[in-house]
């Protein structure tokens, strides 16, 4: 495991951030330069040793991806699972040999897809899923455009925001922090039953609030 070598991840990050402002006003997409700029270290490491490249990649993107995924699913555990799945697929399919885009592009897109699917499975009314069955190509409907993910994300945020304070607190403790009902009940000095009611209410609100957002 690369003993004796430092990950340069943090340096790269600060490096790319400090370089970024002068690019801000460039008009043309700067894809090629850009990706080589901030990912070439990882790329070249991959070509030497996939394992080492992968570790570098993981260190570089794991935190941001988890943080991004949690905005959709509101559960740390789920977010981390989704991100791990994406990394796993990246590894197993040897995507690092094949992607034409930046790794960043691949990873973010995949994580957003997974998060979207997760939410959909959890909150979509099942009748609706069934109706779309007859849309032959609709096997796996995904948002076509970046902005549609952003819209779902915003809606989730608004919904959580709109929960009554106590309900939101319970929801976050349970879902985001992954605490057990009993722990929440003890912490807030309420009964387990009340915790259940809050959770039920929150989930129901989420389900209804997201109803019109599924593709």
């Amino acid at each position, binding site marked *: 495991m690369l003993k004796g070598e430092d990950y340069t991840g943090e340096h790269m990050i600060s490096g790319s951030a400090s370089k970024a402002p002068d690019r801000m006003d460039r008009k043309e997409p700067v894809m090629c330069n*850009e990706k080589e700029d901030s990912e070439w270290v990882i790329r070249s490491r991959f070509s030497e040793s996939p394992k080492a490249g992968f570790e570098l990649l993981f260190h570089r993107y*794991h935190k941001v991806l988890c943080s991004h995924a949690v905005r959709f699913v509101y559960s740390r555990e789920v977010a981390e699972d989704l991100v791990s799945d994406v990394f796993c697929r990246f590894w197993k399919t040897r995507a690092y040999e094949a992607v034409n885009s930046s790794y960043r592009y691949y990873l*973010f897109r995949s994580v957003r897809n997974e998060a979207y699917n997760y939410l959909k499975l959890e909150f979509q009314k099942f009748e609706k899923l069934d109706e779309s069955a007859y849309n032959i190509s609709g096997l796996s409907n995904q948002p076509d455009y970046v902005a549609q993910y952003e819209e779902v994300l915003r809606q989730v945020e608004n919904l959580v925001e709109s929960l009554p304070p106590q309900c939101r607190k319970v929801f976050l403790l349970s879902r985001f922090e992954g605490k057990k009902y009993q722990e929440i009940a003890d912490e807030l000095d309420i009964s387990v039953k009340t915790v259940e009611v809050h959770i039920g209410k929150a989930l129901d609100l989420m389900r209804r609030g997201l109803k019109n957002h599924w593709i």
Partner: protein
Amino acid sequence: MEREINKEHIFDYLGNKTSPIQRKAVEDWLLDRENEELYYQWLEEWERNHLQYIPDTKKALDTFFSQTIVYTEPDTEQSNILNSQENRLWRTFRWASAAVVLLTLTSGWFWRESIMYKSYRTGYGEVAEYRLPDGSDIKLNANSYLRIPRWGFGEQTREVFLSGEAAFNVKHLENHQRFVVKTIEDFEVEVLGTEFIMTARKYGSRVILTTGKVNLRYQANEEKRELEMMPGDLVTLSKNQEMKIRKTDTPENFTEWEESRFYFEETQLEEIGYMLQENYGLEVEFSGPEVSGRMLMGSFKGQTVDDLLVSIAEVLDISVARKGDKVLFSDK
């Protein structure tokens, strides 16, 4: 006129600090695929400055390597997929990240745990086996999803949700807890302890009972009905069709997907098309109704989906062409 979008605009957009007009401008800009790379670059930067929490990256990486890969190079390890497909198949679907995607990890790894439920999922072309907390065994066919309650499973309830296809070997518990399988349809199965195979796909549902006894509840003409199945019974429920029940002498044939064989009993090619779509993510088309209406019978062996496509075409004496995930069956 296209507005020029810079990082600041995107940051405002991500922070939800834009006016509807600006937001529209950003969304228009995003329609251009060329801009996506740049967008993700800015998204990464923004997210890094607004982390929702700090996950334990080191631990995650350790877990990743210890649980999945055990430090081997990719492709050299034995995954626990029973119906292990060729790499080609994985490659084909690499970009089909759209759908629920394959996970080939050990045990706890692919349990998507939300708070209330534990889920089991298989990707296209993947078959996996699990033991549920109550001791029941299930085998999930490709592209299937099973959800069970997170807590109290086997104690207060044994109600699960299935989408896709699974073979159940339900354990009879001392407390005689009923095991109920729900589906998207108004259709559910209740058992105490038995073996059966259940399919709940978009094109219809099916239950085949191997041993024991099954209670089947379904909705017909706005009416709830109940039916008791006996071993060897095969019940199908298709869209807009009455429920059919018939006997099959060979229920084991229907489990052939478990060993990468496929068994079709007077099945229209069109229906097989749905199966291919469900199990392998293929988009299947037919040159016309004379092709899609062809009937297929028998057992087919296919280590890979391509093998299967070829043997179907051979039997029916038609042509099959596959390009990526699109498949076309046509007359010769």
